[in-house]
């Protein structure tokens, strides 16, 4: 062997030796983040928290389109929200709160909607864990005395002002907890295994304070991380309390005023009538009391009327509106009107009517037509074609998964309806099996076109509770980026997935977890869940379920073509 070859062999051996001998696995912040998100998705919350904590240590600043290496970006780097989610799942409520506070300190770099939802979950968890109030004269136990009690330095504000000092918050380690601990002399352990000591894990505040447990966190009530470490002054606290009391007073007055203004206008429609309740059809959802059906009135026979329409039966009730089977001059229609609680929301009412008007323009054989819109005693409504049949949801519950070709033949009709609507600039925004009617002749029709927008994210943001179903919503809508025609295609992809497999692509214990999966998790090919699904249909479904809008079919027409092609080939 020549000297050159020997040299090369030696170098290769040395390189291999060095590679094997090096102790630590190399990892970047995006590696850690992806590992955390993946662990979160598979339910390994302890590992997720650990990885996300590492990601935060390596890169504290969250954001969208964050550069990773080269010209690659991480589209959604939200480590604090993911960490809060993991902490919540582990029952580490204080740590979850701290993660949310740190998320809030970055302002809009992490989506406020998700933060709000997590905060709602956190509050619910805290309420669930809170012990029943002890009698006032119960003396404190020794254990209570020994437990470090953090000073309520400031309200636990999740949304900080978007000012520079607030941004600086993550760079300073939480100071209130160590201070409290120092006064009591009871220092909690420096570090702990995730999940073993709920509420004691303290995420590092900055790269200079890595996740080694160097900064212990309080072990009990949530302690906010104030933007500035200066101790709160008593006068400030008093002023805050006074301001809070004033705001509460004003709020109560406003609520009282609204309640008084909404007193029943008509004597006949005032009190709840047992007779009216008894008049509902057996087996159908009970018609709510008249108090909840403003604009309705009862005739002598106890029959409920809404303007010229006689309400025969409640067909359904959602979070925002009710649908009745109604009759006018021997013509049967479906009548939809908002819930009473929304009648003061003028913006909602405007949208309700505007979208109803848009729906009237959609005259297509695969769309349930909107016939008329109107107003009864200030309550808007619209009527729809009453279609005999059942919803796809009911069909699925009864029949389970269907043959791929049959599924495609149903979905292609929906795609044609979407193509027509999209061509008129209308996006459904809430496509799901309960909004699709299957008629006895096998045809399918889409319902509630254009209404969904009024029923969507207000619920998510205003009440921290997602009232609609999260199973069909497109990732871009979850992220608050708005809906576009291809958002409907995503929803249709979920419907198709469910039709052929009998299950949804993303299933989780909570609505929030489902939403997360929509954003982060790749769906399995339907064929993996149900053998016999042709790869061609797998490909169509997976393309519809792409996270990136641009990677979905260009439009509904393209989907129609693809599905027809599949149907022909399957035949």
């Amino acid at each position, binding site marked *: 062997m020549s000297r050159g070859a020997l040299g090369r062999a030696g*170098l290769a051996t040395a390189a291999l030796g060095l590679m094997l001998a090096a102790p630590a696995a190399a990892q970047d912040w*995006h590696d850690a983040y992806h590992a955390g998100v993946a662990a979160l998705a598979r339910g390994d919350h302890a590992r997720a928290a650990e990885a996300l904590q590492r990601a935060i240590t390596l890169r504290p600043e969250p954001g969208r389109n964050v550069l990773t290496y080269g*010209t*690659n970006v991480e589209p959604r780097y939200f480590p604090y929200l993911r960490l809060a989610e993991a902490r919540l799942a582990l029952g580490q409520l204080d740590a979850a709160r701290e993660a949310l506070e740190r998320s809030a300190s970055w302002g809009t770099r992490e989506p406020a909607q998700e933060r709000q939802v997590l905060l709602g979950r956190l509050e619910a968890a805290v309420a669930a864990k809170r012990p029943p109030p002890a009698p006032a004269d119960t003396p404190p136990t020794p254990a209570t005395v020994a437990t470090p009690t953090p000073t309520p330095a400031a309200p636990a504000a999740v949304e900080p002002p978007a000012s520079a000092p607030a941004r600086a918050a993550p760079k300073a380690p939480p100071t209130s907890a160590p201070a409290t601990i120092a006064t009591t002399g009871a220092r909690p352990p420096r570090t702990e295994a995730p999940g073993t000591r709920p509420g004691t894990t303290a995420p590092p505040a900055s790269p200079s304070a890595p996740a080694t447990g160097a900064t212990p966190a309080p072990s009990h009530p949530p302690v906010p991380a104030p933007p500035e470490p200066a101790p709160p002054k008593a006068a400030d606290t008093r002023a805050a309390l006074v301001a809070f009391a004033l705001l509460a007073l004003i709020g109560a007055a406003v609520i009282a005023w609204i309640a008084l203004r909404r007193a029943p206008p008509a004597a006949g429609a005032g009190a709840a009538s047992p007779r009216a309740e008894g008049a509902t059809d057996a087996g159908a959802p009970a018609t709510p009391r008249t108090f909840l059906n403003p604009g309705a009135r009862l005739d002598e026979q106890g029959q409920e009327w809404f303007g010229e329409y006689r309400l025969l039966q409640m067909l359904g009730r959602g979070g925002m509106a009710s649908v009745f089977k109604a009759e006018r001059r021997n013509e049967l229609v479906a009548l939809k009107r908002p819930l009473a609680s929304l009648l003061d929301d003028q913006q909602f009412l405007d949208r309700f009517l505007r979208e109803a008007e848009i729906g009237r323009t959609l005259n297509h054989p695969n769309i349930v037509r909107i016939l008329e819109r109107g107003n009864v005693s200030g309550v808007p409504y619209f009527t729809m074609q009453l279609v005999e049949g059942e919803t796809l949801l009911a069909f699925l519950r009864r029949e389970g998964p269907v043959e791929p070709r049959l599924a495609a033949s149903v979905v292609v009709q929906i795609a044609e309806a979407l193509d027509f609507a999209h061509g008129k600039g209308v996006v459904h925004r809430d496509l799901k099996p309960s909004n699709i009617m299957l008629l006895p002749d096998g045809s399918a029709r889409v319902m509630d076109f254009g209404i969904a927008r009024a029923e969507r994210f207000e619920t998510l943001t205003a009440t921290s509770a997602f009232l609609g179903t999260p199973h069909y919503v497109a990732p871009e809508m979850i992220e608050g980026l708005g809906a576009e025609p291809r958002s409907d295609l995503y929803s249709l992809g979920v419907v198709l997935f469910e039709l052929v497999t009998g299950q949804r692509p993303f299933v989780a214990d909570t609505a929030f977890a489902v939403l997360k999966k929509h954003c982060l998790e790749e769906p399995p090919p339907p064929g993996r869940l149900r053998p016999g699904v042709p790869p061609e249909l797998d490909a169509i479904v997976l393309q519809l379920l792409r996270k990136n809008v*641009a990677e979905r079919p260009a439009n509904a027409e393209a989907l129609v073509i693809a599905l027809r092609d599949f149907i022909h080939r399957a035949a």
Partner: protein
Amino acid sequence: MLARAGVLALVVASASGASAQTGVPFIPTGSGARAAGMANAFIAISDDGTAASWNPSGLAQLRKPELSVVSTTVGDSSAAGGFRTRDELASFSTARASYRNTYLDFASLAVPVTLWGKPVTFQAAWRRLYSLDYREVVSITRDPLVPEAPPPVRFDGNGDTIGSVDLVSAAVAVRLTPRFALGASFNAWRGDWDEFSVVSATPLEAADVSRFESVSQTSRVRGDSFNLGLMLTYPRWSVGLLYQNAVSADFSTSQAVTSSDAPGAAAETEGTLRFPRAVGIGGAWRPAPRWTVALDLTWEDWTDTILDTPYTGRINLFDGLPPDRSSTRDTLSVNAGAERLFAGDGFIVPLRFGVAWEPQGARDPYTRDPVNFVLLAVGTGYNTNSLKFDAAFQYRWASFMTGADFGTVEYSPLLPSAVGERSTQQWRLKLSLILRVTDTDKLKRGVRKVFG
């Protein structure tokens, strides 16, 4: 390689093949429009599929498989002007030659995996180091300056070259710690090219007859080399170190010469060609989140570029002189570049620019005037996480004094018959397409589908 200088050099240097290399930008740069847009300052960056051609350790930064393709269009124009015989009896008209060539420059597949708990990236690549496909036509006239000077004559040259020198590489890089990466590549050199040239001298006064010489030559190179690289990466800056060992290649050539002054002759020879080693160090600094500034220093051991055959003996490839008398020098190149990324929703548009100082090892043995290329580069592109299209434009130029002999007279590099100035301008347009497989599950499914 020898043909790279083109027929202009052939005419100027009288087909000797010696100082023909002078003025040719010979530094074997890596591939990729991103690097090219930064004036080749990429040793400390090397974070895409073209990394192995710059610094193999940079491959360790990859997190997804990348498929890369690079094309290059090169336009070269040279001029030889102001030449006069050393005895000041005659002058020469300015001669110009140019060529343009487009070729596939680079193709690679890089696949990152995790081994022993560490990120490891493997890459297989093919790279066209020198493309030798072009044709040049040139004409130059010698005019007497004084009555006793030789009569005027026109020299015409016509040359065709077909071939290339390619590398087939296998590279591996490992990230040993979050900050430290090591990489190596093994390169198999494969060079084959054919040259055919005709130089004629036509007297412009009727008394004389034309003379000509035609040369047909086939050359072949087979060798291997390896590159070692390491990289230190920090959030705001990184440092890269590169070592390219010397190529020791088997070289063979067969030549046939036909001349109006002598009977035809053919010769074959075999030997070794040693191509020099190089050491590079680069630094990259990120003063702001979307800004990168890079600086590379590369030292090349050109004096070690040795051709050793029974026919030539041991000579420097560039000037044809024994190593101890060679005018070839070692060089230190300086490349500086910057990149600014403009982010849109799901895409990035980069803006790159750079400048470089690229001294060449080859010099004219008589004038010993250094040949220093100045390079300006700009680049841009459209990058998404899965598809990256980049374009770069480089423009380099140099001018230098050189000696020459003309026609078919015996050539002496150390004592040429004429001296003048040569200038070279070259532009390169590089286009890169990198496909980054972000959905690795899909890739796995595809592999399973293909291989069962």
